[in-house]
Every structure is written in structure tokens, then in C-alpha cells.
């Protein structure tokens, strides 16, 4: 029990004293996940909006596929990205394996379906509400997309934060393609796994606390935004 207390104290000291190794790991984790979410947003939001507004053969199939990809096991994504980036893989020439870029790619693969699926849901619901009014105002289906994206902005930020939550907490895929190399690809989740196995609980606990703090903050923002979006939507229901 005394050991646990000592580990907690050490963990707290690491956080409060600004331990350079700990904060370097936190910074790299944030950089990788923020980049991954931004790239996923650029890819996923237009796909989601297009699936919500456009009508074309195979649309339903694409929606099912996208929803299925949301639940894709991260280790399998890691394995697939590893095979693509490995020396003998089709993208081996880029020499990206065991770099932060490889981790970003893996997270993009994991997060894009989430952002695209949530965007589609949000935009489709709003499009249903706005459809007749926008047509009456002479707004074409294509021109309605930016209107819908802007008016759904709160819900779309929620989708981005949900994607970020998934990315920052990811361990399986990034450890496969990142390799957990010290000072290069070691992020919070992979460090926690490694340090726990080594018995260095102080660093693992400190990172765990920061990770939980980030998760709580993200969820609090998601909650606040969802509530606001809901109130906006309900006021005129």
C-alpha cells in the first residue's frame, strides 16, 4: 500500500515538476492525434456530407461499409498499415515505418470512418429539416452543402472531438507501425503499456492521469456542445 502511495506521489511530482521526458511524450501524442484528426476531417467530412445529400447507386452500400469501418479492430488496421509501409510493401519506398507519420496514417485510417459517419448522420438530419425551405429559397442541392455544414458546425465539432478521443487513446495500431521507439514514436498509450510491464509505475501513472484528464476534457466539451446543439434544435421542434 505504501508502495502505491509512493508511486502516486512520484507520478504527481513528475507532472508538477514538468518532467521533460513525460511532457515530450504528451506533446508527441497530441501532435500525432491532432494531425490525424485534421487530415481525417478533410477526408471524412466531405465524404459524409456527400453521402448525406447526394443520391447515387451504391450509396446505401457505402454507408454500411463506412459504419462497419468504424468498428474495425485497431490492431488489424495497424497490421494493414504495417504491410503497406513495410520495406516489401507497396509504400515501402517512402520509408515511413516506425515514424510519427506512420502513426498518423494509422490513426487517419481509424478516425476517418468515425468522422465521415457522424458527419453523414448530422448532415442528413439537418438536410431533412432544411430541404423544402432551401429549395423554396432557390438553393440547389450542391449549394446546400456549405449551408448545412455551417449550420451543423456544433455537431461537427463534436464529431471531430469524438475522433480525437479515439485517436489519442489508441494503442494497438500505433505500437505496430510506430514501434514505440524512445524519443521518436513513443506516445502516451504505448509508454503506459511499456512502463507498466517494466514496473515503472510512476511514469505510467503520470501519463495515465494526463490521458484521463484529456479524455475527460474532450468529453466535457463534447457534452457541452451536444447540449447546445440539442437546445438549438429543440427550441423550434
Amino acid at each position, binding site marked *: 500500500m505504501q508502495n502505491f502511495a509512493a508511486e502516486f506521489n512520484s507520478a504527481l511530482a513528475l507532472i508538477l515538476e514538468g518532467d521533460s521526458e513525460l511532457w515530450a511524450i504528451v506533446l508527441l501524442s497530441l501532435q500525432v492525434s491532432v494531425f490525424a484528426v485534421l487530415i481525417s476531417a478533410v477526408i471524412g467530412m466531405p465524404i459524409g456530407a456527400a453521402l448525406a445529400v447526394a443520391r447515387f447507386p451504391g450509396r446505401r452500400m457505402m454507408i454500411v461499409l463506412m459504419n462497419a469501418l468504424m468498428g474495425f479492430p485497431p490492431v488489424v488496421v495497424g497490421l494493414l498499415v504495417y504491410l503497406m509501409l513495410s520495406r516489401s510493401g507497396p509504400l515501402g519506398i517512402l520509408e515511413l515505418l516506425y515514424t510519427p507519420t506512420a502513426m498518423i496514417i494509422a490513426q487517419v485510417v481509424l478516425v476517418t470512418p468515425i468522422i465521415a459517419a457522424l458527419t453523414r448522420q448530422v448532415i442528413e438530419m439537418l438536410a431533412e429539416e432544411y430541404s423544402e425551405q432551401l429549395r423554396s429559397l432557390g438553393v440547389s442541392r450542391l449549394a446546400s452543402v456549405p449551408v448545412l455544414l455551417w449550420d451543423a458546425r456544433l455537431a461537427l465539432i463534436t464529431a471531430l472531438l469524438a475522433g480525437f478521443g479515439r485517436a489519442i487513446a489508441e494503442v494497438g495500431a500505433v505500437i505496430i507501425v510506430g514501434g514505440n521507439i524512445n524519443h521518436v514514436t513513443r506516445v502516451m498509450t504505448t509508454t503506459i503499456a511499456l512502463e507498466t510491464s517494466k514496473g515503472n509505475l510512476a511514469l505510467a501513472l503520470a501519463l495515465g492521469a494526463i490521458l484521463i484528464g484529456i479524455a475527460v476534457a474532450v468529453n466535457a466539451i463534447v457534452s457541452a456542445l451536444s447540449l447546445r446543439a440539442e437546445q438549438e434544435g429543440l427550441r*423550434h421542434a
Partner: protein
Amino acid sequence: MRDLVSDMTNCLRARDLQVRSNGKALLDVHDLTLDGPGPTLILGPNGAGKSLLLRCLHGLISPDRGQVVQDGTPLNAYHKARQAMVFQRPVLLRRSVAANLDFVLKRQNMSRTGRKDRIVELLTEGGLEDKSRQSARSLSGGEAQRLAILRALALNPETLFLDEPTSALDPSATQMIERMVLRASSRGVRIVMVTHDIGQARRLAADVVMMQGGHVVEHGPAKQVLDVPGSEASRRYLAGGLVT
């Protein structure tokens, strides 16, 4: 000869209009011509096809048969751009009151100054001048409907369709909407409005279209239709009886 004249003058006409669903005709209008200068009010029980007719006239629904003719030609994009519609439940953009109006004005390629002046003018017209920066979604029901009407008027429509705009409003809010409708009508905007409120029809209508079961059962000057109804369905509806 009369057909040709009514098609060529400034009028809106539904010819042999039919909308079907599951083999049943939801709307079946043989011939309806709206060419009077004052507001036209469409009355009838639930399911009579009033809102469906309005949507067909505005081009939101394509009929399965027949056509809508305006100014002698089938309804086209040019005509639609000169129409506006206000729905029973106002659909406001998730933006400020002013931004809802600006959205429409921007689409008309107005200058920034022109838009600003027009927004002030419209807000004053609707009594919303102190709500300019407020979120449109936080307006009361009456205010929201007034904003929806102002946004429709911002399009400078020749024809304004209103689908039961006061059905959920109190008498005071209803009165404000009715004043706006009458002012628009006096400026030359053709008003075509659906209502359940016979009193409202008496207050606003120049002519009344009475509908039942997807058909137009009577169309004529308001006084005539409301005081001396020519059909049994109209008589029963106006007497408050059940119309089947």
C-alpha cells in the same frame, strides 16, 4: 378563348393536377385559376390536399399528372424564382436573425451596404429591429414566423405562399402576421394562404378556395363562398360539422 386569356394574363393556374400515392389520388384538381388581385385563402379539413396543392403551385412537388401554368407557360425556374413560401413550422437557419435575412439577400448579389439597409427595413417591417443579433432559433413562435415571412419577402416575390402560418400562434401574434400579409398584398404580392381559421379567411381573403378529399369543391369571392356556400361540403365545413 377564355382558357387562352386566363393563361396569358398574370395568373397562376392548376390544370388537371393530380398527385397520387399508393394508387390513391391525394390531390385531384381539374382546373383552378388564381388571378384576382387580393389574397386567396385555401380552406378545408385535414387531408383535403391544401398543403399539397400549395407545394405543387410552388413547384416543390411535381404532380403525377397535369401541370401548373403561370403567365401562360408551364411553371419554370424563372417563375419559381419569383415565388416564396412560408411553412407552417418556420425553418430558420441556425444563425442570428439578421444573418437569416442576409442569407437570402446575398444570393441576390446585393452590395454589403444595400443588404444592411434592406435588413434594417425588413426588421422594422416585422417589428424585430431589436432582435437583429439574437439567435433566430431562440425567437418565440410568433417572432420566428414573422422572421420567416420577412425572409420570404426579402426575395421580392410576386407570389407568396403561406401554409397555415398562424396555426400555432396566439391571437396577438396572429394579428401581427395578418397585418404583414395584408401589407404585402397591398404592395402587389399575390398571396395564396392555407388556413383552418374561418375568421381569418373572413378577415383576409378576397377569394376562397374550398377543398375536400383532394378536390376543389368551390372557388369564388370570399363573401360568396363564406356567406352563401354553393356546395354541401362547404356548408358543413363552415357550419363546423364533420366533413368526410
